[in-house]
């Protein structure tokens, strides 16, 4: 059922491949670290329970092909990816959202943008309204970009003298969705791709709602590269821009049904709001 992206039509760009750092070129493999627990961006395939698939996997595949490399897309815990960038992993592609604080630790090359989407129990029994969040209880993935946005919203509620948003943080987005489906929270919010995918998986037990206010904007996702690896960062940006221009990204996002994730140009360490 996963879209079948075919990287064969992508050809190797010798000019770009020539810029590869020596150790990668010699190995002939692009090693990508990812936590593979965030469908549809990256998850473990149903077929054999081993192979990762998802949007990020297709993107990594396209990049590797462009550079004339084989792709080694490896699963790792989030805590294990970041310190090992530049040593164990060449790139980290795991739907990382870019923030100013994170930019101090790693280099990011932006490659997609993510809008938010709400999920509520089918039929919206709690009469949740995306434009009136104060006093609601919201299940959320702990540490996610959307948690920070909600914290701002909650702050606004308090300033306006309204009750704050009650956040219930979970280790995984799946646990947050389970809580909503079981009536344990009014709603949950995450990236549009994720929520859309989850709603489809839920066999009609969940429904989605478009966000309003601050959550209506877009956040940038980035490919993480070790801070000291400037050359590789620039190369990744060039490759990404080439793939954007060639329409490969548009095609991948289209296949996964998230056209609005496409960005016009990839930037190195882009300026973001927070």
């Amino acid at each position, binding site marked *: 059922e996963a879209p079948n992206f075919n990287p064969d039509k992508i050809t190797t760009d010798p000019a770009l491949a020539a810029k590869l750092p020596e150790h990668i070129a010699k190995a002939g493999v692009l090693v990508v670290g990812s936590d593979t627990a965030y469908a549809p961006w990256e998850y473990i395939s149903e077929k054999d329970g081993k192979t990762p698939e998802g949007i990020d996997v297709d993107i990594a595949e396209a990049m590797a092909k462009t550079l004339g490399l084989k792709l080694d897309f490896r699963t790792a815990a*989030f*805590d*294990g990816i*970041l*310190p090992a960038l530049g040593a164990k992993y060449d790139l980290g592609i795991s739907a990382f959202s870019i*923030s100013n*604080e*994170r930019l*101090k*630790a*790693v280099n990011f090359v932006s490659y997609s943008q993510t809008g938010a989407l709400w999920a509520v129990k089918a039929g919206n029994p709690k009469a949740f309204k995306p434009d009136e969040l104060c006093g609601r209880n919201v299940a959320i993935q*702990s*540490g996610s970009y959307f948690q920070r946005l909600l914290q701002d919203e909650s702050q606004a509620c308090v300033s306006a003298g309204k009750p704050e948003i009650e956040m*219930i*943080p*979970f*280790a995984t987005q799946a*646990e947050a969705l*389970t*809580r909503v489906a*079981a*009536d*344990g929270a009014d709603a949950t919010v995450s990236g549009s791709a994720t929520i859309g995918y989850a709603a489809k998986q839920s066999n009609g037990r969940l429904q989605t709602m478009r966000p309003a206010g601050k959550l209506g904007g877009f956040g940038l996702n980035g490919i*993480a590269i070790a801070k000291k690896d400037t050359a590789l960062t620039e190369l990744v940006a060039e490759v990404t821009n080439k793939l954007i221009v060639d329409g490969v990204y548009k095609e991948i996002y289209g296949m996964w049904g998230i056209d609005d994730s496409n960005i016009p140009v990839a930037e190195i360490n882009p300026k973001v709001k927070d």
Partner: protein
Amino acid sequence: MDIEKAAPDRLVPTRQADRVGAVKLNEVVPRRHPGRWVATLLLLWLAISFAQNVATNENFHWDIFAQYVFAPQVIRGVGWTILLTVAAMAVAISIALLLVVMRGSDNPILRTCAWFWIWFFRGTPVYTQLLFWGLFAVLFPRISLSLPFGGEIVGLDTKMLVTPAVAAIVGLGFNESAYLAEIFRAGFNAIDRGQLEAAQALGMRQGRIWRRILLPQAMRVIVPPTGNETIGMLKMTSLVLAVPFTLDLMFATNAIANRLYLPVPLLLVAGFWYLSITSLLMVGQYYLERHFGKGVDTIRARTE
């Protein structure tokens, strides 16, 4: 028995007074163990070069460590972690004692219940258990006393009862009780049967016998593995995010790491605190062992 004290082969005295009163003591030359010293030097050198590497390796980001090790949210996390540990161990110890008594009951249903409890809580992962405790209020919104297929008699909103803190403590405590029950069983089995009979002969009742005679003696065997379990519990509190309970040490450091994208120094912060608390617990264990060893360990009976 302390092995080291019992084996005179190795009781080689260090330099000592060479006479006591009028007695000229033997001048004993200990055996040399050149191999051991080489091994020791090797170990020391390994430790030093490791420490040197750790201290200078930039991956450890010691500046970030220093910045956050005493941050208020970390300190608060330490407090909650200690609180959870203590509360959950208290729950676990109470239930474990009950389980040991139930297993010794003459009522087969109580015995079966105890066995089942131990089997179930030892058998399933604590993360799963915690998740279900978190979902408890959702899955069973009302606890109500009702006729099996009839109407409700008394009801209570579960949400009031099972707050995240309660769910965390109950979840950790129930899981731990099963492990402690096994430890306690071994401890009580080690007591000489004559102790029970002597107490019975005095006309003491079962409850008093347990409390005054059996428990204090069992403690000697129980304390070291229970120390293990307490230290294990300390680390297990990091799983309470499953409930979700979000004030413990691990959550606090994870949240910072997630924001900064620097997991290693924050793991070191958490590790530093866990190690500190463990050290405290080990000191406590030492004194507990000494306390319950009184009359037995401190004054070693002669053996023939």
